[in-house]
């Protein structure tokens, strides 16, 4: 055999390098293993990892403000939030453009709802303003339309904006409009608009063309109409008025509508300027309120720690982070209560479950199996039914109270309150989670041979010493596994506290559910959920440090 004397890589029988040949042989195995794992892996990724990632993202995401109020947010950057004065005219003008488009796209109510979480009343402010925003500048628009009816004609506007057939085109405003709309609504605006701005008019009246292009894109893709057959928005006319009044130089212009433009500029010179601030204040005097503007400015960045601060009873102000008023503080207390009650439930499960698990582990297999079925029986009953059954048992006119009154242990008029409070939640959840404690304990205890106890006794230990020094330490892994299971299940429990918890026995998860389904404040719900997740992970880590996760056994 020359294998040992051969220099260079070891070769397989067919001459290929042995390493390569081994890899080839193993690759099929690896692929097969991966294929077997793949369905679950994909399932977990899609239904578990992805939602958690989404939740974490939602808890800090805040793009709605900067996406909806694209111009306002920029204009607000210069405003001194602590100066004690409402922002200047420029901010209100920017607000006009943003509000008008948002109201057309019906995005302003979503933003109002979002900001309402931080500042009560903003929702109705936005809703009301959305209805009235097209009235702004109506005097000037009326004057324009009185001057020449052409300003109400869709075909005239189309002609003016395209610069007529064969004129040079400039598509930059159109793509800017697509960009602006897709930022606002996150929909796609790709495709033929049936309109392209003329190069000359774009250079002359950029603001007007920009608004018109936005109108055109919106009309085509959202309303599915033809641009040339629709009268432009008021915002387009306001833009035109602004630009004409600002002294757009029409002298060299000879394209379509040149006459009308000159006439309009002449007429508008006598018209007053549009006072945006006054107009908004007329819609709602809250537009002059400094806290409203502070809130908008505070929440204008695309990401915010605001939800997390809310979730721990703090709030974000222009001065930085401060505590919420005491009457609004709720979450810290709820977290504490959730932790405390989960610990109590875990403790009661240990106390009740340990003896049962011990008996199960020490009975002959047949009897043990029968008893195990009794332990598992609750699993075959609907969670809702089990919880409702506790309602029947514990309520003031319920079974337990009736029995106590009948026995004379409790007076009829002072029946015990055992439900819709912490006691009810603890009792019902201990009952529901008990099997999760018993099963790991049982499977660990089953592996402890009875000879250990005998050995301890033969060495002179009393029953108690033998149990405490020899049996109990070996059953700790079972207690650990059961405790982790019960605690983690308890900390996120929802249905039972919802039904039997009343107001004092509810958990943080009930609050999360409220924000998900009723108040629709998903960001806050996500922040609360993230904190809960972090708390569980931290406790798990602490358990690992103190007890050691190797010590957890399920059998």
């Amino acid at each position: 055999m020359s294998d040992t004397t051969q220099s260079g890589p070891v070769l397989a029988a067919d001459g290929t390098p042995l390493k390569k040949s081994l890899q080839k042989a193993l690759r099929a195995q690896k692929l097969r293993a991966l294929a077997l794992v793949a369905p679950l892996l994909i399932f977990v990724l899609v239904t578990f990892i992805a939602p958690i990632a989404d939740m974490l993202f939602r808890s800090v995401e805040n793009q709605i403000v900067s996406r909806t109020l694209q111009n306002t947010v920029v204009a607000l950057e210069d405003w001194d939030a602590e100066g004690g004065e409402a922002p200047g005219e420029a901010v209100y003008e920017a607000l006009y453009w943003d509000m008008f488009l948002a109201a057309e796209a019906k995005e302003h109510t979503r933003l109002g709802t979002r900001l309402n979480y931080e500042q009560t009343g903003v929702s109705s402010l936005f809703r009301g303003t959305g209805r009235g925003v097209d009235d702004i500048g109506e005097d000037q628009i009326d004057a324009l339309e009185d001057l020449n009816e052409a300003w109400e004609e869709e075909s005239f506007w189309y002609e003016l904006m395209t610069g007529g057939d064969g004129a040079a085109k400039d598509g930059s405003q159109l793509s800017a409009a697509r960009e602006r709309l897709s930022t606002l609504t996150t929909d796609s605006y790709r495709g033929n608009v049936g309109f392209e701005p003329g190069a000359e008019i774009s250079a002359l009246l950029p603001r007007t063309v920009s608004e018109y292009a936005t109108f055109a894109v919106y009309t085509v893709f959202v309303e599915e109409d033809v641009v040339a057959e629709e009268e432009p928005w008021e915002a387009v006319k306001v833009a035109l008025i602004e630009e004409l009044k600002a002294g757009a130089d029409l002298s060299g212009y000879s394209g379509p509508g040149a006459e009308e433009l000159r006439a309009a500029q002449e007429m508008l010179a006598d018209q007053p300027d549009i006072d945006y601030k006054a107009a908004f204040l007329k819609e709602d005097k809250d537009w002059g309120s400094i806290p409203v503007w502070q809130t908008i400015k505070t929440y204008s960045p695309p990401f915010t720690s605001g939800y997390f601060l809310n979730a721990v009873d703090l709030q974000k102000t222009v001065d930085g982070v401060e505590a919420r008023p005491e009457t609004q503080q709720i979450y810290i207390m709820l977290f504490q209560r959730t932790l405390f009650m989960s610990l109590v439930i875990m403790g009661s499960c240990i106390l009740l479950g340990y003896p049962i698990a011990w008996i199960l582990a020490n009975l002959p297999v047949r009897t043990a199996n029968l008893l195990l079925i009794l332990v598992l029986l609750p699993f075959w009953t609907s969670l809702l039914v089990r919880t409702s059954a506790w309602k029947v048992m514990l309520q003031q006119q319920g079974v337990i109270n009736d029995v106590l009154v009948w026995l004379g242990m409790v007076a009829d008029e002072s029946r015990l309150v055992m439900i819709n409070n912490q006691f009810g939640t603890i009792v019902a959840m201990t009952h529901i989670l008990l099997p999760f404690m018993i099963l790991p304990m049982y499977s660990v205890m089953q592996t402890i041979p009875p000879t250990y106890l005998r050995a301890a006794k033969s060495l002179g230990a009393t029953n108690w010493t033998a149990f405490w020094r020899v049996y109990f330490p070996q059953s700790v892994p079972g207690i650990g596994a059961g405790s982790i299971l019960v605690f983690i299940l308890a900390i996120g429990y929802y249905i039972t506290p919802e039904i039997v918890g009343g107001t004092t026995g509810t958990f943080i998860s009930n609050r999360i559910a409220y924000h998900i389904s009723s108040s629709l404040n998903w960001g806050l719900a996500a922040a609360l959920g993230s904190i809960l997740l972090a708390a569980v992970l931290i406790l798990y880590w602490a358990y690992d440090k103190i007890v050691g996760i190797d010590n957890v056994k399920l059998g």
Partner: protein
Amino acid sequence: MTDSQSSDAFVAFDRVQKSYDGETLVVKDLNLSIPKGEFLTMLGPSGSGKTTCLMMLAGFETATHGKILLDGVSINNIPPHKRGIGMVFQNYALFPHMTVAENLSFPLEVRKIGKSDREAKVKRALDMVQMGNFGGRRPAQLSGGQQQRIALARALVFEPELVLMDEPLGALDKQLREHMQFEITNLAHDLGITTVYVTHDQTEALTMSDRVAVFDDGRIQQIDAPDTLYESPTNSFVAQFIGENNTLSGVVKKMSDGFCQVELDDGEVIDCKAVNVSEVGERTQVSIRPERVEYDKSRLKSGTHTIKAEVLEFVYMGDIFRTKLRVAGNDDFVIKTRNAPDQRRLKPGETIEIGWLPEDCRALDAR
């Protein structure tokens, strides 16, 4: 059972019965007394009741009937932890969550012995089993033989007068087992403790014990010193169970002065020692040890009765030859001969004459 209830007995079983289900007796009318310092082995097939006896002595099982005495005091109602009996378990039962030293210290702690005293005793016990450097280890870090030594040390550390061992060497390999057999007997004799040892391994029982009690069917079949047990079994179960044994069945023809004549099933008549037969005409099983059978004429005493045998199989085993014969219709008749220079090797198919001394041929009960 001749020696029941002798007054100097350290441990005594007095008419002890045990039933688990109320229908069958696992231990039937057990009478046994063990003098101080004796190494007694309970030997028997599984299910023979030997472990139950040990557990009753340890206090983990209660006797259904009868008394168990320790040093003259009935211990029937004394809980195990107050009996002060050391015990070595089959799988050692070392507490896995404690170190070796903590394991040894445990019986001393529950006896409320002071710390310095405790440490000294633990050290002495560890040195006794040559494991002085292993105090800090966990049981799981020790080999089977080492665990065995620790279990032994733990059973002895609180200086009990009686130590029970329940098949303690069952999990060890052959070589280690033989070594530990030797160590355990030495230790038991050196310390002068009374030992009750349970095993199903007859070699272990023969090599270690002062006396061996052979159990079967809930009764002691015979209790004697190892050599007596081997050479003079009093019934065919013991003859079969201890060592290798050849059996020929037949009918007693004549009895005289401790000897008898037995007519084997093929009509051959042989002389036997009458051990467990009482009358002429009774069926009997004749027991002959393989190494007591001779086929070399020169080695046989003159006048010895010989019978014909056909060689079926010859196995060379190094130190001995093991030859299987057909004798009087029995195909399992085995003889063992020493591998001496002048020893003739038999060939299968050969017919030979075999013979033995009448004392080595024991007429026992027909089971």
